[in-house]
């Protein structure tokens, strides 16, 4: 009964979103948009809630629950299993689109102008199309009747983990947040809204979407690091690229909107970029959910779903671009800026970010293109390619970002700051080298470049050499621009983390007997024992390892878990975390008796990567909230 109620909620919201979506376009009437938005949100939430309920009470007559849960699954994971697979995550996605829409309407002071109605209409149409997709191809409430299974197949073990329960909602929230800039761009073109107005109403939402995308991707990377058991933090896997490309475009949009709002420039570009960013998030969904990228060796291609998403993609993206080509009524002011202006700096920033995004997309799709034009030959494009591509872009973006905050609109009067900037970043560079030498006893030239970029960014982001009359003035300035300073500093920390971890990491793979003691990077590592452990839905071999690091002694437990009923084996890594380095042990295979293989790794500065991502998240979040507060 309960799942049917959820299904009814879903269908009602489908009808409602169609009415809301067609309203502004066909009836040309003023609808009570806020009320409709609230009702839609409640209906979708109700539907989501009944799905959660079905999981929590183990209703295995619901096919989706039976496929993704199990009686023995801990209650917290039953809850999170709701969005553990395709159908449920779609509902969550739709729910977040509704929340975005509701938030937009609630903060919008010019409610019921033509522009707001249009934004509401576009959003409702997108929501409608997603609901249609769910109801017709991916209904999570489908029942297995008349004889439901007694137990479910279980949630994929590697998803049974804290980070993975919060990572998808945040990421979906970011993805779906790109709906607002898209809808605003379309509405601006249709209604001829002034550039300053639409850009300033788009900017806080774009920033907020960027914030959620960043934290979602960051959590995903952190999860991969400790859960997949071999210590990598980014794999250039198609699924990751599908999230990275929209992120790059969103960052570009955040910057180009500044120019559109303040200078009435890059108008067409911002309009387009809003469409591109949304398109990229739909494209990512398409690539991941149609299975075309991952199905090379699994045979679970679902062309129906893929076709449906492609239909949604074509309708909205091509529709939006057609409006851009034929109906764009926003005016584009011709104005000039010189090569040393902030405008030009932001132009470069956008070119670099967008070309990088397109290149990564190209590399991700290349194996498919290759297969098509060679008639079935296969090729892999992975980390070495993407690292090769991203390197020149990140260097140029880094150099640019360091001076970005010093540039002024129109033209920058003096470049005197440059000498100080260079000197200061050189001293920070040297200090960092000294720190690294003290910590790791060696200097690796391969890392010098990234460390210099880090120093350059830190000096550039914190504006420590900007001439202020007093320290209080400086603090005041920091306070006013805290969002941008935080996110730019976050970028600096991220660069340092990436640079150090990729050149200073160490690893060794060895076999240990119980009681055996070895030495690794001046640490004594002793395998104390290996015990059997029983979890709620798994059995495991747990290795207890004692580490003596300088004067500090600590114990680490790494596990090899076998989850029933799937029989899937996962590795739980043992990590001693630290600001300057992580010590990472993961259990490998069993050799004779009680001797097992282990992989020992030292991962210096890896925390800085996520710390950087966190600062970017915070910075964009604060900027967004500040803008919203100022407006209301």
């Amino acid at each position: 009964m309960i799942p049917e109620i959820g299904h009814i909620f879903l269908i009602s919201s489908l009808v409602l979103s169609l009415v809301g979506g067609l309203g502004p376009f066909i009836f040309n009437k003023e609808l009570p948009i806020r009320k409709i938005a609230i009702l839609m949100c409640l209906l979708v939430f109700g539907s989501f809630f009944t799905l959660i309920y079905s999981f929590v009470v183990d209703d295995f007559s619901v096919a989706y629950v039976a496929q993704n849960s199990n009686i023995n699954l801990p209650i917290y994971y039953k809850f999170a299993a709701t969005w553990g697979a395709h159908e449920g995550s779609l509902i969550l996605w739709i729910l977040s689109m509704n929340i975005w829409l509701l938030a937009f309407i609630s903060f919008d002071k010019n409610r019921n102008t033509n522009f707001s109605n249009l934004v509401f209409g576009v959003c409702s149409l997108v929501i409608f199309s997603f609901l249609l997709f769910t109801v017709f191809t991916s209904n999570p409430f489908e029942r297995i009747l008349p004889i439901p299974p007694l137990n479910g197949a279980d949630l994929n073990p590697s998803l049974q983990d804290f980070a993975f329960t919060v990572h998808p909602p945040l990421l979906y929230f970011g993805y779906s947040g790109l709906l607002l800039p898209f809808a605003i761009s379309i509405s601006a073109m249709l209604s001829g809204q002034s550039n300053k107005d639409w850009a300033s109403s788009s900017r806080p939402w774009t920033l907020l979407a960027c914030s959620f995308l960043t934290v979602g991707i960051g959590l995903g990377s952190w999860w991969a690091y400790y859960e997949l058991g071999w210590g990598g933090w980014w794999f250039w896997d198609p699924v990751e690229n599908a999230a990275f490309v929209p992120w790059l475009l969103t960052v570009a949009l955040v910057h180009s909107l500044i120019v559109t709002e303040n200078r009435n420039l890059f108008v067409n570009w911002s309009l387009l970029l809003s469409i591109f960013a949304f398109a990229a998030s739909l494209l990512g969904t398409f690539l991941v959910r149609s299975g075309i990228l991952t199905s090379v060796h699994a045979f679970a291609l679902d062309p129906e779903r893929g076709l449906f998403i492609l239909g949604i993609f074509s309708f909205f993206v091509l529709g939006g671009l057609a409006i851009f080509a034929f109906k764009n009524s926003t005016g584009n002011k011709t104005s000039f800026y010189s090569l040393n202006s902030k405008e030009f700096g932001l132009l470069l920033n956008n070119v670099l970010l967008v070309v990088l995004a397109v290149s990564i997309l190209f590399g991700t799709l290349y194996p498919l293109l290759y297969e098509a034009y060679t008639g079935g030959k296969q090729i892999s494009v992975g980390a070495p390619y993407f690292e090769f591509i991203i390197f020149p872009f990140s260097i140029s973006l880094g150099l640019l970002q360091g001076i970005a905050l010093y540039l002024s609109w129109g033209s920058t009067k003096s470049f005197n700051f440059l000498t100080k900037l260079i000197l200061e970043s050189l001293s920070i560079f040297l200090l960092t080298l000294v720190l690294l030498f003290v910590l790791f006893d060696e200097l690796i030239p391969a890392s010098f470049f990234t460390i210099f970029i880090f120093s350059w960014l830190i000096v550039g982001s914190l504006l420590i050499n900007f001439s202020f009359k007093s320290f209080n003035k400086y603090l005041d300035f920091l306070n006013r621009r805290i969002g941008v300073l935080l996110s730019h500093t976050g970028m600096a920390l991220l660069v340092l983390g990436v640079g150090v971890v990729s050149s200073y990491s160490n690893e060794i793979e060895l076999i240990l007997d119980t009681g055996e003691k070895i030495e690794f990077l001046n640490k004594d590592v002793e395998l104390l024992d290996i015990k059997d452990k029983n979890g709620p839905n798994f059995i495991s071999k747990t290795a207890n390892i004692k580490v003596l690091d300088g004067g500090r002694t600590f114990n680490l437990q790494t596990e090899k878990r076998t989850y029933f009923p799937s029989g899937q084996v996962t590795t739980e890594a043992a990590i001693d975390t630290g600001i300057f380095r992580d010590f990472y042990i993961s259990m490998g295979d069993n050799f004779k008796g009680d001797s097992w293989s282990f992989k020992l790794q030292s991962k210096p500065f890896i925390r800085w990567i996520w710390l950087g991502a966190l600062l970017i998240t915070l910075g964009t979040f604060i900027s967004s909230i500040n803008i919203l507060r100022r407006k209301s």
Partner: protein
Amino acid sequence: MFKKFFSLMLITIIYSLVSANEPKVIYPFEDSVHEERFLSLLNELRCPKCQGSNLAGSNAPIANDLKREVYRLVKSGRTEEEVKTYLIDRYGNFIVYDPPFRPDTYALWLGPLFIFLITLSIILVILLTRFSNSKGNQ
């Protein structure tokens, strides 16, 4: 500071006297150049059976066999290129994450540069038309 350093020294000396057993490294190398080559190869070779994972990141039986084979080849002094060719001859280009630069992959490697140049020329066209337009208007 000194105290800590001293005790560290002491520990190290005692330790080196007491513990004589060599760690049983799975893939031991005498030559550090070989070791680095081996590790970088593991990162650049794809596990054929797994979904999007390299040899370093996989514990699948086939990945372990291939690791052992790569180890044997590197140990016998083969270069990175030779090892890759060896595996490509058996598993096809699919096995390497780093596609070679050949006529059939020119598009892949030069694509980003091409995209960059196209973007630059579009921007130039836009800026130039705007410049000439406004000159005409004046």
